[in-house]
């Protein structure tokens, strides 16, 4: 089991016990699924985290805080069928943990993991043009919009292309 360590976080594989925190996020206004999110839809997405790890041998990590142990989000390599390219994603589940650099910390660690351990030649992040918070994070990571790259068919996103860490 791959585990990544950052100063304030342990990034580990998802576990069944993460479900309540993940579902609370899915059924919040901060999630694309929204407050009316059917429980079954969130469950399918959650189950698919494990499926992705099994099918690809890599996947998105759950962010746990070193100080509290709480699971506060997910981040990392994502490559579902139907998406044009391999992606680095990040999501904070707990609104109380936003604005403290946790997503940045996790995004750096998982991006470096993808380039270093998984040998990815390149990586993108698909970001909603209205998601200014994520755009700022991508820019801090050194990513730039790649106007030539196309987004997933079902997600009219801007494609931010990452650079390997110096």
């Amino acid at each position: 089991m791959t585990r990544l360590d950052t100063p304030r976080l342990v990034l580990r594989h998802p576990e069944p016990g993460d479900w309540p925190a993940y579902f609370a996020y899915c059924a919040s206004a901060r999630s694309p699924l929204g407050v009316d999110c059917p429980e079954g839809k969130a469950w399918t997405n959650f189950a698919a985290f494990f499926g992705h790890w099994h099918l690809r041998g890599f996947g998105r990590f759950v962010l746990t805080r070193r100080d509290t142990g709480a699971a506060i989000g997910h981040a990392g390599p994502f490559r579902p069928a139907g998406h044009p390219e391999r992606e680095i994603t990040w999501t904070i589940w707990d609104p109380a943990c936003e604005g403290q650099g946790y997503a940045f910390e996790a995004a750096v660690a998982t991006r470096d993991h993808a380039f270093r351990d998984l040998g990815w030649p390149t990586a993108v992040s698909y970001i909603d043009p209205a998601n200014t918070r994520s755009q700022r994070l991508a820019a801090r990571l050194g990513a730039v919009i790649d106007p030539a790259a196309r987004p997933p068919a079902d997600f009219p996103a801007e494609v931010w292309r990452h650079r390997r860490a110096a």
Partner: protein
Amino acid sequence: MTALSSTPTLTTARLTLRAPQAADWPHFLAFALSDRSSFVRAPDIDEGKAWRGFGHVIGMWVLRGYGQFVFHLTGQDRPLGMCGPWHPVDWPEAEIGWSVWDEGCEGQGIAQEAARAARDHALGTLGWPTAVSYIDPENHRSIRLAERLGARPDHAAAHPFADEPCLVYRHPRGAP
């Protein structure tokens, strides 16, 4: 590859039933995108939705400790379909599901042989007190299979599909 840990394997006269593997994906996808799966998936299926669906099949094993088995003829690799325990979080009760991916193996009792083994596994090894199968009323082939397995309609039982028509077949305890 991240393997599922400690998943059981079932064997029948002709078949091996095992947990899903990455190599099953193209077979699952071909089934999901074909007309053959129309009773068991969303009408707007695409590759991405099929991927999430197969991820769900695998994740069920992690989340519940059981899940659907992929079955193939013993001694051959080609997966023919999947069947077995299935219980998404918002379903009223646990199900025995089945789908035959490979049209070429229909009419030989293969699905029945696989579904019976998976059903007996759920009611026996897993100790389920009862099990149902949710079936579209138009899915005559699946209804015949449920009846051959000894399942009977339970008109009082709830089903997970809101206003859509759905039959609930309840399985008998023990082999019929």
